Every structure is written in structure tokens, then in C-alpha cells.
């Protein structure tokens, strides 16, 4: 029988004497220095961070540099800690293989398939919007907080408008972000407008934060001639080069490696900017996720990976999706610093993304953020999720765990919001959007396949126009020829 022992417990036991009890609650391996600073700070009472602790000192970075002997330039503190933590009496020789530094042990131990404790989830506001004591977060001004709240409400309204439009047959398809407003808005608020966004499809709030108007959303959903995408894609496939938000594609996780390449470009240009990419729990099963994480670590690119772990990939629960303890644990497997955050806590999301951005840009490293949340809405208008999950579960999350209400409570506690402001906000969100606009011309079927129209497409366009002339009734009347 193999001797089986959980390394984390071993390490925990050995580190216990060296670090405070608090560390037991963390993942034992490679706690980054930023959280180590949080470690010590927690001993004081609630202390919002107005300036971030110094963590750019390479000596204080405790990730696994030691496992990559060809990284000569950094001193590694972690490897030494590990050697220290090997139980006494064992041979603690370190040997350099090209594949990594190894510490030998005559005791056969398998690394556990799961950590001894669940990876902790960072949250700052409790379910009633009260600040949790001993919490650390990046402070948010009243202006930003109110803007965040307004945007979350606007996002909800936007979702209602377009969901109804689809139900009434005015648009063909829609995808809501109900329950994930905090992830959308808080993350967007923590970024700058220079940060390049590579969305999946449940992040219109990021566009909204950056200034995309209801009419612009509508143009794309209705596929009218003002659609920047020229009517080529299904609804919700928004994109805006002006707002640095790359066009949504239905393909899952394909955007993740794009973000890494873009981040590398930003690093080369020495821009004060990072790339940010969003994806769901399902997306982390795709090969592109793993490819991107690995590339990001190796190329040392300033990219933030934000996983919306909302529990469902259409009808597939996370138990059918993976067996790891969520997503954040995977970061270490690739050499990527990571954190798990309560995705329904706007303040925690803001702090995490803000900090991640700082690390990404200043240290040229990728960061993985797992935002745990719940997909309150159906996957899309083509889905009825009551077929695979209980209706009362959905209702509970909608009512009791609503991120918007939770944040509202916090801003009210701060005296930044009230019922008058609330009714003003709700009435001001315009629901008048022009929909009966013309569609783009049929010529746009042929443009942008390449930079110029090649001869085969010019020929096909000519033939098509002849066909349209012969059989006009076959074609929709609202597309100009």
C-alpha cells in the first residue's frame, strides 16, 4: 500500500510555529507577500488600505521561483522555507534537474488531490451589506461607489428591457447577467479605460461602465445599421474598439489566450495598462484556458484572468465540470498568483481587481481571480433552467444573495444613498430605444472578410444582386440592397 500523506498538512504543521495561526486558513503553498501583509494587518482592527503594501520587492515574492532553476535573477525564499519544513531526520538534499529543483525524501508521499481546507474566499461585506470586522479592502470614494451602484441598477434594467424584447420577438436572442452585476461593475470600476478587455459574453456591465449607451447595446441586439458589428452577429455580441472591449464571440474561452498576447504587447510598449479577460466556470475546462494560463506565466504578461464561477455551464453543474476545489487553486499549477473572491461582494471584487491590476502592471505577472457567484438567470433566452435546477434555489439567490441590494445597503450605511436617490435613478434610466432602424446594407455581407474585397467575393456579390432582383420576395425587406 502506498504511504499516503497530505503535504499541505505537513507544511502547515511546520510553518505553524513560524507564522501566525491565520496562515492555517490559507493555502499552505506559496502565499504571496501581499496576503502576508494582510496577515499581519488583520491583527489590528478594521483598517482600510489607502495605500497598497509594498510587494514589488522580488525578495518578498514567495512564489515558486526555486522550481525553475533557469530563473537566475530572483532569490527564492519559498524553496528555502520548504526545505526547512521537511521533517527532521530526512535527507534534505536539493538537486538540480533541468526540469526543476527537487528535494529528495525516502518517504513516499503523494500530493493530495485536494487541499486540506477549501481555498478561502475573500469577502468584505456580509450578506447585509455590513463591513466585516478586520477586513481589508481598497477604499472607494463616494462618487465611485454611487457610480458603481447606479451602473449595477442600470445593468439590471438593461437586462430587463432586452429580455422582454426577446420574449416579445423583437430580438432573436438575449443573455442576462442577473446575479453577476457586482462582478461586472466592480471589476470594471477597478480597471482603467486603457486596460484591454477580452470578454466572454456575460460581461456587458464592463461596457456599460465604460460608457456604452443603451442605444448602442440596442443597435447590436437589433442588428441595425448603427451596429458597430454591421449586423453580422447574434445579439449580445458587442464590441467597441473605442472602449477597448474586444468583440464578443460565442466560442468559449478562445478569448483567453488573446488576452495574453495583448498583455504581452502592453508590456513591450511599457504601457500602464493590463489585459483583462472574463470567462465562466465552464470555460476553464477548455484547452484555451490552460494554454493561456501557461503562456501568461511563461511570458510574464500583465493579464488578469477573471473567472465567473457561477455554478452552471448551461445545465452542467460544477460537479460535472471539474473536481478541483474551484478555479483559484489551479493558478499555482501554472505559476500564476490567484485569489478566490465573493463575486457578489462588490467591494471585495473591486479590491481584488484593483490589487490584481497593480501587481499585473508593476510586476509583469498574470493574476487569476475566481469570483464565486450564482447565475440567477437562465443561460440565455434559449434556456429554461428550471428544467435542471430547483426554482426555489434560483429564487433564493435572486432575493437573499442579490449583490446589488447588498451593495446598496453598504452605501446607505455610509450615508451616500437613500430612497429618494433610488427612485430618481430608476426613473431616469431611459427605456426608449430606437429599434425600427434600417438594417445594414447587403454590401456589408461582403466587406471585412479581408481588408479589401477579393475578386471571388465581388463576383458573388454581383450574382447575388441578380438573384435578389429576380426573387425579391425571398429576402427581408429591411436590408437595403
Amino acid at each position, binding site marked *: 500500500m502506498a504511504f499516503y500523506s497530505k503535504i499541505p498538512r505537513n507544511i502547515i504543521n511546520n510553518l505553524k510555529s513560524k507564522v501566525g495561526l491565520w496562515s492555517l486558513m490559507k493555502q499552505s503553498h506559496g502565499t504571496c507577500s501581499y496576503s502576508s501583509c494582510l496577515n499581519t494587518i488583520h491583527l489590528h482592527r478594521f483598517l482600510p488600505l489607502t495605500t497598497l503594501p509594498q510587494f514589488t520587492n522580488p525578495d518578498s515574492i514567495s512564489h515558486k521561483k526555486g522550481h525553475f532553476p533557469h530563473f537566475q535573477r530572483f532569490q527564492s525564499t519559498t524553496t528555502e522555507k520548504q526545505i526547512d519544513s521537511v521533517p527532521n531526520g530526512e535527507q534534505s538534499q536539493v538537486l538540480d534537474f533541468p526540469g526543476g529543483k527537487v528535494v529528495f525524501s525516502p518517504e513516499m508521499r503523494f500530493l493530495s488531490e485536494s487541499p486540506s481546507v477549501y481555498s478561502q474566499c475573500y469577502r468584505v461585506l456580509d450578506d447585509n451589506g455590513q463591513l466585516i470586522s478586520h477586513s481589508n479592502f481598497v477604499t472607494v470614494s463616494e462618487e465611485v461607489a454611487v457610480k458603481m451602484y447606479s451602473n449595477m441598477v442600470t445593468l439590471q434594467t438593461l437586462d430587463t428591457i432586452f429580455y422582454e424584447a426577446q420574449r416579445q420577438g423583437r430580438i432573436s436572442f438575449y443573455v442576462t447577467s442577473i446575479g453577476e452585476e457586482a462582478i461586472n461593475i466592480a471589476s470594471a470600476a477597478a480597471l482603467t479605460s486603457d486596460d484591454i478587455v477580452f470578454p466572454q459574453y456575460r460581461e456587458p456591465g464592463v461596457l456599460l461602465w465604460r460608457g456604452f449607451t443603451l442605444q448602442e447595446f440596442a443597435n447590436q441586439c437589433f442588428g441595425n445599421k448603427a451596429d458597430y458589428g454591421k449586423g453580422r452577429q447574434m445579439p449580445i455580441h458587442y464590441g467597441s474598439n473605442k472602449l477597448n472591449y*474586444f*468583440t464578443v464571440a460565442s466560442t468559449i474561452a478562445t478569448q483567453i489566450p488573446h488576452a495574453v498576447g495583448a498583455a504581452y*504587447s502592453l508590456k*513591450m510598449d511599457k504601457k500602464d495598462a493590463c489585459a483583462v479577460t472574463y470567462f465562466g466556470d465552464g470555460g476553464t475546462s477548455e484547452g484555451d484556458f490552460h494554454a*493561456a494560463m501557461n503562456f501568461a506565466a*511563461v511570458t510574464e504578461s500583465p493579464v488578469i484572468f477573471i473567472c465567473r464561477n457561477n455554478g452552471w455551464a448551461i445545465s452542467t453543474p460544477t460537479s460535472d465540470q471539474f473536481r478541483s476545489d474551484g478555479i483559484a487553486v489551479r493558478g499555482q499549477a501554472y505559476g500564476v498568483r490567484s485569489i478566490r473572491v465573493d463575486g457578489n461582494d462588490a467591494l471585495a471584487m473591486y479590491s481584488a481587481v484593483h490589487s490584481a491590476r497593480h501587481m499585473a502592471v508593476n510586476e509583469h505577472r498574470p493574476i487569476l481571480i475566481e469570483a464565486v457567484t450564482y447565475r440567477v438567470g437562465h443561460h440565455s433566452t434559449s434556456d429554461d433552467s428550471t428544467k435542471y435546477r430547483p426554482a426555489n434555489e434560483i429564487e433564493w439567490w435572486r432575493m437573499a444573495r442579490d449583490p446589488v441590494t447588498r451593495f446598496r445597503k453598504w452605501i446607505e450605511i455610509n450615508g451616500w444613498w437613500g430612497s429618494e436617490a433610488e427612485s430618481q435613478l430608476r426613473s431616469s434610466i431611459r427605456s426608449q430605444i430606437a429599434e425600427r432602424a434600417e438594417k445594414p446594407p447587403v454590401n456589408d455581407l461582403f466587406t471585412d*472578410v479581408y481588408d479589401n474585397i477579393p475578386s471571388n467575393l465581388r463576383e458573388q456579390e454581383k450574382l447575388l444582386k441578380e438573384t435578389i432582383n429576380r426573387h425579391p420576395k425571398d429576402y427581408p425587406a429591411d436590408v437595403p440592397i
Partner: protein
Amino acid sequence: MGLRNIIGKRLGLGLVRRRKPFSTATCDGDGNGNGNAKSINLYSAINQALHIALETDNRAFVFGEDVSFGGVFRCTTGLSDRFGKARVFNTPLCEQGIVGFGIGLAAMGNRAIAEIQFADYIYPAFDQIVNEAAKFRYRSGNQFNCGVSNKFPGLTIRAPYGAVGHGGHYHSQSPEAFFCHVPGIKVVIPRSPRQAKGLLLSCIRDPNPVVFFEPKWLYRLAVEEVPEHDYMLPLSEAEVIRQGSDITLVGWGAQLSVMEQACNEAEKDGISCELIDLKTLLPWDKETVEASVRKTGRVLISHEAPVTGGFGAEISASIVERCFLRLEAPVARVCGLDTPFPLVFEPFYMPTKNKILDAIKATVNY
């Protein structure tokens, strides 16, 4: 013109065949004799193109598996030393990552030159190429592309393709047909060192995503005078490399030299063959091929890739559509067999000179 002959050898089962020189029937502009030209092989020509690409644009990057030390075919020799590890770097062993990363890099306005080590391994990147790179511009309404941001740069994917004499299933494939079915990308295949340098520079500077297949068999064995300066050859322009009047032959890449040999032998039997190098398979130059078929009335297409669904089928269908009444005989295709690329059986699988010659005669005598 001052061109040296191209010399090559194909090693089959103990057979060594001397390759005959190409004759270029037309001038190809910048590729010709201006300034110094040196006799170099294909991988050196490609290497020169990459050096020029990186020196003329400081936003050009070369990346892929093993490119840093010079690459398994030495196409990237010296680049890392000269331009630094930030611009020329190894990637992890992951084709979908290589192309996905390249798309992101290109979308930010850089010239991303990705290498796939063998075309046989390009399939993990197929989704990124087809669903992402090819549609990047179109789906965004030209807000984004890779392609161009506001300038010219773009994504070029280079991969060695084709038979090498001993490559078997996974070092010999010609996957061009899969990519020719994808609106939004370009597919380019050079036949010789001088062509390769000019075409590759055009691909790198083209504002669309391009897949550039390099005939690996010619890397060392094809030698030609290649001008040392920066020059580009036009894409989507086929070249008539041998004039003739009895039959039109269409091919690309390494297969052209086999076809050229067949043409030479056919000439001894009084058959005058016109040979066309397609060069760009997507979008392909129908006009040049059509004009030739109108002259000859007969067409034969040859490629290493399996015959069923190969790109020859597209050419055949197009020519029949356009030149049906002019045709004196059915369109002939001399291609690889519909099998995985075999090792011991390679000489049987391949569209050899004699297979082509037999088909030329059958077509002419139809």
C-alpha cells in the same frame, strides 16, 4: 535574369532523382536581380525574410516551439541573438496557445509571426485560426482585426509541410485544403527560395491573417540565387512559369518541380505544357488559370495532399464552371492517395512524375 538553377534531390526507396531547373517565364518584379544576389537554400531564404521583417518593424515578433536556438529547420537562426529574447522567443508546447497568443499580439497592432513546428501539428490551432483569426475583422465590423489595428501589422503562421522522404503520417502532411475553406485567411505556398523570401515578406506585411506553408523537402535541397535586399512578391497572383499550348498544369510548392520534370518529358513526345504556380491558394487567381485553359483547352492539377476534397477539386470545379465548352478533356487530378501518409509506401502514395506524365498523355489523347 541571373538566376541560378534550382537543384534538388528526392530520396525515395533508393532512388535519387536529379531535379531539373525551373524556368521562369515571366519577370516577377522585385525578385529579380537588383543588387546582390546569393545562392542560398530555402531555409536561409526564409531566415533572411524573417531578419528583414524584424529589422524593418520593431513591432514584429517571432515565436513558437524551439525558435530561439534557430528552430528545428534553422529558419529562425540568429534572430534571437540579434533582436533579443523579448521579440524572438520559445513558447510552451501548445499550438492553440501559440496561435491564440499570436492573435492577441496582432490585434494590438504588432506583426505576430508564429511558427508551427510541422503542419501536421497545426490542428490544435485550427479553432483559433478558423473561428478567431479568420473572423476577427468581420465579426467586429472592422473595429478589430489581426489584421490591422490602425496600422498594417498582422498574424502570419508559418509551418513546414509536405513529403520529406521518410516523414510518415506526422511529418509529411499537406493540410492546405482545410484552410482554403476558410473565408478570412490567406493561404500561401512558395515553390523556391527566391519565391519564399518575397512571398513571406508579403504575408508578414499583409493586413490579413495568413497561413504560410513551407515545403520542408526544399529547405536544404532547393538552392537559388536570392537577392539580399528587401523585396515582396504579390499575393493572389498566379505565375505561369512555363509557357505551353497543349495542356495547363496547375500546382504549388514542392510538387511543381515534379510537374516540371513531367513537362520536360512530355515535350519530347511533342506535348507543349504550360505550368502555373498558384502561389496563393486562398484567395486564388482564377483569372490566370482560366486564361491559360482558354488557350490550351486541357488542365491537370497535381498536389501531394489526398485527392478527395483536396484543393485540386476546387480548381477543377471552378474551371469546369468557367471553361466547360472550351475543355477538350476532363480535368485531371494527380494527387496523393486517400490514405494517411505512409512511410514504406511513400513512393506509391506520391503523385510522381510518371503518374503525371501518364495523365498528361491521357488528357491530350482523350
